[in-house]
């Protein structure tokens, strides 16, 4: 039975693919009018996948360091052989559980949320394709397969952000997301090519499948042996850049906020819980490789902590509920990055796990709120606790979880603070603690703005969420509440940090510090935001800063400037160069020949008179020449 689960685990990722194909090919048929079949197929695939992953979890818990790999060849040329396959170990099982369970909840939610959309089937096709790509990504046994599905999840995200492509803003956001992610793909592919090329013989001699994760350690040594440390650093930097784009880290985070143009379930599943975590997952997978480049590791840590801090600051000033949550996602992913950067492998993945659930919960609640008031701007909400108390309660649980008020986020953040203190990175620790304080403030601010205070909108009646919306939210509430307590200790042994073994000291002061921060945060949020936003603070500096922060620190403006004023101008000049110089030379040559031919044509005009004129003129010329020559000759003779 155990073997059966493990050897057939590919089915977890293929079930969604099959349902996608089934829906795609049968949705045109008349018998397929019923939307229930679509949602049943999709939900069935996710549920079976979750069930299967639980079986795998059982195997992993029984056997320490469980590791199972199966490969099928993808292409063979010369000495190069690339293969696809799947890898079952603790990390991939963890990711499988997260992806399948969040997917299930979100798909259940979408069934109601998207019920009135004309493109219901297309939406579920995309969702299934995404699940296929994401599940294959987390089961990748080698870097190449990871890249393949890395890009495919990007494509699915592109399709889902642009799902309502009639809206120009959605079309623009989808394109932007894909293009920025393309930068990361470029860095990823370049790093893979370089890594594969410089350690080519290592893979051949060690008899490990090309680019397999299990031998990255040896590959790193082999790369270090064949090239300079600078090249090694650049390869590591490629992976870091790739992770930063997918996980929306500074300075390439700008796509994530725009990605909120997609339907809310998509934001919950892809742009909060699963796909954006792929960057963190990548760093975790290539961790044995990156470990040899301390500079790259500290770059990860600093990018992470800066993202966590700056995004939290920006989130405080956001008024759009989904955008606020997007900035918050970026910030939380920053926490994971900083943990990875200092070697807190286990802590980072723990935060990834808890974050997946509470952020999905927050997004689903946000979707329910948007559904009931029909807008996204929090300034026009308020007092909604009275009309949709269920959503208010769940949202509050999400807020507590993310800001670490004793629910799941508390434990995972605590693990991150521990590792920061343990490696004596006190600068990072201070910034991380500050970001945590800001998290409490912006999350409570959003809760107060939406559910407390006075209602500022114009609607008389609100759309009360049906059970189809409530139930999936309830599913996500449970892990958000209990996950931290239940798996806090077992997690540390389940996901072990490879290579390094940091000794965990006793930092009870950190525990106290976190509690103090929470209390300060809650108090501040109460004072500032309980009765709507206090606009009383009229210091001009703050006002200016608010505008600055609302615009996301003008990252977008800067990139737009670069592209429109610089890049597109260059391309226009390049085109002019091509048209008038490169092609100009060709056409000029043609023109020269044409002019010559025109000149000759002038004489070859078929007119007997002009021919005879030319003849006579030539004769005269010859005679003149002859006479001149003759007279010169005669003169010489004579003299």
């Amino acid at each position: 039975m155990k073997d059966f689960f493990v050897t057939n685990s590919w089915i977890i990722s293929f079930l969604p693919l099959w349902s996608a194909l089934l829906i795609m090919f049968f949705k045109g048929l008349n018998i397929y009018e019923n939307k229930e079949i679509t949602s049943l197929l999709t939900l069935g695939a996710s549920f079976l996948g979750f069930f299967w992953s639980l079986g795998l979890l059982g195997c992993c818990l029984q056997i320490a360091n469980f590791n199972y790999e199966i490969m099928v060849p993808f292409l063979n040329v010369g000495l190069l052989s690339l293969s696809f396959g799947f890898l079952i170990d603790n990390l991939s099982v963890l990711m499988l559980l997260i992806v399948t369970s969040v997917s299930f909840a979100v798909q259940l939610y979408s069934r109601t949320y998207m019920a009135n959309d004309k493109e219901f089937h297309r939406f579920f096709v995309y969702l299934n394709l995404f699940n296929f790509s994401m599940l294959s990504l987390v089961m990748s046994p080698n870097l190449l397969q990871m890249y393949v599905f890395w890009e495919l999840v990007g494509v699915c995200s592109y399709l889902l952000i642009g799902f309502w492509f009639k809206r120009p803003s959605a079309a623009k956001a989808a394109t932007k997301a894909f293009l920025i992610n393309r930068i990361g793909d470029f860095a990823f592919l370049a790093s893979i090519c370089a890594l594969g090329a410089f350690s080519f013989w290592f893979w051949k001699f060690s008899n490990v499948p090309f680019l397999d994760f299990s031998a990255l350690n040896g590959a790193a040594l082999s790369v270090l042996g064949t090239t300079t440390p600078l090249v090694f650093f650049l390869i590591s930097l490629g992976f870091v850049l790739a992770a930063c784009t997918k996980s929306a880290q500074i300075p390439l985070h700008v796509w994530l906020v725009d990605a909120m143009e997609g339907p809310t379930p998509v934001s919950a599943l892809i742009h909060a819980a699963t796909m954006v975590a792929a960057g963190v997952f990548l760093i975790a997978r290539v961790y044995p490789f990156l470990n040899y480049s301390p500079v790259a590791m500290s770059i990860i840590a600093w990018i992470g902590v800066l993202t966590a801090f700056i995004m939290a600051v920006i989130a405080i000033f956001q008024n759009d509920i989904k955008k606020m949550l997007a900035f918050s996602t970026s910030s939380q992913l920053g926490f994971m990055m900083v943990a990875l950067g200092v070697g807190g492998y286990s802590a980072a993945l723990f935060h990834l796990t808890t974050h997946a659930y509470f952020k999905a919960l927050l997004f689903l609640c946000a979707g329910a709120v948007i559904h009931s008031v029909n807008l996204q701007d929090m300034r026009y909400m308020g007092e909604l606790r009275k009309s949709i108390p269920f959503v208010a309660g769940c949202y509050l649980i999400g807020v507590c979880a993310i800001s670490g008020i004793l629910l799941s986020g508390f434990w995972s953040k605590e693990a991150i603070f521990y590792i920061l203190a343990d490696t004596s990175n006190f600068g990072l620790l201070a910034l991380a603690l500050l970001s945590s304080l800001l998290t409490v403030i912006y999350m409570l601010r959003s809760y107060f703005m939406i559910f407390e205070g006075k209602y500022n909108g114009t609607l008389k009646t609100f759309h009360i969420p049906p059970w189809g919306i409530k139930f999936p939210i309830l599913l996500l509430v449970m892990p958000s509440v209990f996950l931290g307590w239940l798996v806090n200790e077992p997690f540390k042994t389940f996901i072990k940090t490879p290579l390094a073994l940091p000794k965990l000291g006793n930092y009870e002061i950190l525990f106290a510090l976190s509690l103090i921060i929470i209390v300060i945060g809650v108090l501040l949020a109460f004072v500032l935001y309980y009765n709507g936003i206090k606009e009383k603070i009229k210091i001009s500096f703050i006002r200016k800063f608010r505008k600055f922060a609302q615009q996301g620190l003008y990252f977008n403006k800067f990139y737009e400037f670069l592209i429109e004023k610089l890049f597109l101008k260059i391309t226009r000049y390049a085109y002019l160069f091509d048209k008038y110089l490169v092609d100009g030379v060709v056409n000029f040559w043609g023109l020269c020949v044409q002019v010559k031919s025109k000149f000759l044509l002038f004489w070859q005009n078929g007119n007997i008179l002009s021919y005879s004129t030319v003849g006579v003129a030539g004769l005269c010329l010859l005679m003149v020449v002859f006479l001149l020559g003759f007279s010169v000759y005669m003169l010489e003779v004579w003299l």
Partner: protein
Amino acid sequence: MSLALLAFAPLIFSAFIASPLMPNNPVIIRRSAKFFGVLIFAYSILFLYFFKPEYSGYQFLQSFQLPFLSAFESGCAFGLDGVSLVLVLLTNFIFLLALIASKGAVNKKHKLYYSMFFILQTAVLGVFSAKDLLLFFVFWELELIPMYILISVFGSGKKEYSAMKFLLYTFFGSLFILGAIIALVYFYSIGSGVVTFDIEQLASVKSFEYPLWAEILMFFGFFVGFAVKLPVFPLHTWLPDAHVDAPTPVSMLLAGVLLKMGAYGLIKFNLSFFPDWFDLCSSLIIILGVVNVLYAAFIAFAQTDLKKLVAYSSISHMGLVLIGLGALTIVSMSGAVFQLVAHGLVSAALFMLVGIIYKRTKTREIADLGGISQKMPVASSFALLFVLTTLGVPLLSGFVAELLVFLGAMSSDLGVFIKVFLIVGLFGMILTAGYFLVAYKKVFWGNLLPKYLHINDLTAHELLVLMCLAVSVIFFGVFPNTLLGIFEGTLDGILKLI
């Protein structure tokens, strides 16, 4: 299995279509042309079946002695190796699809169109299957005539100008090839005492050396000739004009098949005849390739005409072939040949889509289009698939080529500078995504312009063509081994010459 029959079958069909036997009825002409196209394609599939991929030399040999050429060893010699077999199959596939796509694209002089079409097919098949230099050159030149007529009679816009430019430019390149062929045969006969035009013999390992200056001239003679066809910067300017003004099926052929003749020549002649020179110039070729990739991508950004954008992207993608060939490893060269097929399929599809849009909206200006996905959902899904293929999204054919080219080039023993340059070349994948997706967004997404409220989705013919291309693009992306296995042995044999 007669290769000569395969090469000359289209010529026979063309004569049949032109002859009075064929009634002057467009429907009958079109249907019989399609029937002939299917016949030729089916016949070439048989060659694939009997081909032995483990054998690196020519197969299916067939030769005729021509009485008037008895002075030296030349004649009608045909043969196929792995690379040419792949290209022959691609040729027949794309020609068949272009025949199907011709419905609606051509509305006059059907007899002329279809007979020229088949003459062109003979020329291209001849180029890929000739084993004799003289025969090769005859076919190489023969290709110009039908193409000139197809563009100048059936094209649009400045069609006479474009056709003439195409003709003169290619002819200019051909002169270099002819000079190089004569010089090669001459110097080979001086060295070995045998006057021969046989490609296999000329490419075999020699016991003597050509004079240095002659070798340089011959190498660059061939190179310039093929560089015009490929095309390589700065000899590319005929391409956008010719592609844009040609009718849709002919653009499909130009991008899908004819460009590949240049790459084929580089492999068959430059590399096989002068392996040492190719090795020496590998850095130069890679740099030219990277310049091609980036330069054309930059220009594509500034294009307002959809067809021109696709044309420039073609140039950009051919740069990848140059990089793959220049790196001279089995992996990168397989990538280059794979790219020939992948690009052949996808560029045909993209030109077809541009034609489909043009037929319905009467415009190719990107700025004049918008939101047509709402009226053409099927077409827009296909367009997205093919755009993603050109971007090199995995599990589609473009990715395999890109991966093999760059992985192979990085693992070659070139200098660090060239490797840095390669990474710069890889930057093209961002640029390609940029211009294609921005154009896709503008054309298909967003608000539907009111003037396009009446347009329809794909017709059955168009659907068939796009479906065939889509299936092959996905198939080769998921199972690249099926294609790689055919020509790997041949490339291995060529690389052994170095």
